[in-house]
């Protein structure tokens, strides 16, 4: 009975959190529509969605991972590694489609490494994924050096930028479509599949999950592989949008992903979370960034704003949980 009440209480607090987040989102939207120049325009909304797409895609898998009580700090570096690798391989003559598949596979291998370190060898996720973060970024710089310079910008195939800049029906950037598809897939996974249920079980009570026969290691490794693969795909999309490969791509992305997830109500301790909440969190951050740029606000004020948003979200989370 206590467990049922507690579970119902957590669900209620999640719903309240989402409502609050939605209210914040609507508030920011209305404010910017009235105050910011050219905010209320289809093109601007497209920009915002493009800017949050990478975060939402990676956070869709990372959210489930955090629900298990683990997280991945290497996503930005894996993204950069795959971006550089994609540029390097296509410059050497590999067809674009083959390079995409190869790079996503390599990104998944980084995920395997993380998963094995965390799931099998019980290394703390922070340490394991920070190690990958350094290694992947280092290899990104190394591959650029093998190519002869600081980055890979010259000598790329003529159609290199096509993949990331494809517009569906002439209007919708392909990255937005990817975001929608990935989000939908993980929404389904979270709600309707054993992987989703097991993730909650593992995060809720690891021992109980093990005792009930859940393959905890398999779930954790699978989630790290998915996060890695999505980071790789995002690297390929970003590098083709930019039109050139720089090893500093995705700097700080891991924190953007964590902010979106935490803002959405997912607990860093595991056991609870929401994909919809993550999306709302990402949109809040995306809207804030867009609005600050439209106002021409300097960078230092922007970082203060992000800090305030995050602290606000954490305080709301605390308040909501206390009531529940």
């Amino acid at each position, binding site marked *: 009975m206590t467990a049922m009440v507690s579970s119902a209480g957590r669900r209620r607090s999640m719903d309240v959190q989402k409502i609050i987040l939605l209210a914040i989102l609507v508030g920011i939207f209305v404010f910017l529509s009235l105050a910011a120049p050219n905010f209320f325009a289809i093109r601007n909304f497209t920009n915002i969605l493009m800017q949050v797409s990478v975060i939402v895609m990676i956070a869709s898998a990372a959210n489930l991972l955090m629900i298990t009580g683990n997280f991945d700090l290497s996503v930005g570096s894996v993204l950069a590694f795959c971006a550089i690798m994609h540029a390097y391989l296509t410059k050497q003559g590999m067809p674009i489609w083959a390079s995409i598949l190869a790079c996503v596979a390599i990104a998944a291998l980084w995920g395997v490494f993380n998963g094995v370190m965390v799931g099998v060898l019980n290394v703390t996720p922070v340490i394991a994924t920070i190690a990958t973060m350094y290694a992947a970024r280092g290899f990104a710089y190394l591959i650029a050096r093998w190519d002869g310079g600081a*980055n890979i910008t*010259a000598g790329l195939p003529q159609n290199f930028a096509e993949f990331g800049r494809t517009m569906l029906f002439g209007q919708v950037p392909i990255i937005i479509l990817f975001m929608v598809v990935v989000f939908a897939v993980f929404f389904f996974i979270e709600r309707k599949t054993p992987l989703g249920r097991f993730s909650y079980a593992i995060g809720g009570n690891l021992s109980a999950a093990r005792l009930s026969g859940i393959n905890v290691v398999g779930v954790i490794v699978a989630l790290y592989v998915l996060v890695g693969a999505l980071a790789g795909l995002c690297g390929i999309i970003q590098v083709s*949008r930019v039109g050139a490969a720089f090893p500093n791509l995705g700097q700080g992305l891991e924190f953007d992903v964590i902010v979106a997830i935490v803002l959405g109500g997912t607990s860093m301790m595991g056991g609870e979370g929401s994909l919809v909440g993550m999306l709302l969190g990402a949109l809040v951050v995306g809207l804030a960034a867009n609005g600050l740029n439209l106002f021409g606000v300097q960078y230092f004020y922007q970082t203060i704003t992000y800090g305030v948003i995050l602290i606000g979200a954490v305080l709301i989370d605390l308040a909501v949980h206390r009531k529940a």
Partner: protein
Amino acid sequence: MKKILLAALILSVAVAALVLVGCAKKTDEGYVGGKPTYVVGHIVYTMEAQYHQGIAKQIVEYGKKMYNAKVIVLDAQGKDEVAMSAVENLIQQKVQAISLHYPNTGLTTAAIKMAREKGIPMVTTLIRPSERIAPHVQPLEGPSSQMMGEVAAKQWLAAHPGVTCRVFILDFGKFPQIEEMRTGAFFQGVKNVDPKAVLVGQLNGFSSTEKSMQITLDALQKEPRINIIFGGNDEMGLGALAACQQVGRGKMKDGVPLTEVIAGLDANISAMAQIYNPNSSFKLTHGAVRDNAIAEMDTMIGMITGKIDPKKYAETQVLSREFDYWNSTMEEAQRFLEVNYLFTGSLKDEVAKAAK
């Protein structure tokens, strides 16, 4: 199973480490007499940029060839604490002199004093320290930036008479000296041609192509009439170009601006490939790599041999050569890249690949 996995992982890491060490370039080879005559240190602001990599390569090669000197290159990674650690590292290695490029003027002053306490002279470059107490190498960026602004404005107004220049700038976060030498000078150049020119916005591009792309997309949304964009370095300029291209801009027709004119800085290979692409709106840059590196190296050796007073501020100025589509030839650019970036390819081929 776990033990086997752990053992396999440890073995893989050990093998990878050995391979990397083996692949690492041996730095004590090729010196006259089998060992270097001098050992000096060079701290790079960040190895992420082609420009800084270019300077590092030039210093190492010139130092070896001219002075039989070994140059230890360290990357400050754009971080204050890493820069200071690099200085401490070089002091620990008892190098005979240090050259430092770092934009934090207080940090560079502190670094000069720290090295001086240990008897190691230091030369700074690009950004003058807060206290002028040591030799300094200064590329003359101000006149070149202003010239770029004038050329950009002239070309825009020639193609679009009467359309006021609306300028958007990507900088590094409002460093006063960058304002003086690059961004402010560029805008002044635009105003020299079009007194009604408007600075629409100036935001931090983080020296990142990706971030500059995102910020430029927002800037273009805020003010679609932006027609001149300046990136504080080529990486940011290229990010602005990527943003323009994604919204159907970034275009020229045989050098006639259709949508905007974009300028960068550093004169690197990627920038030149766009500059000489007649249909790309990225059209101007300037840079000084070789001459800067030579001046730094000469100053370090001069201080070591007593020919230059390490405690006196003396500024060695270096020309930062301006390149643009309309006034510089591809052959000149090719030569510049070969000399400065040790480029061994063909700029013509790179332009052909970049052109659509």
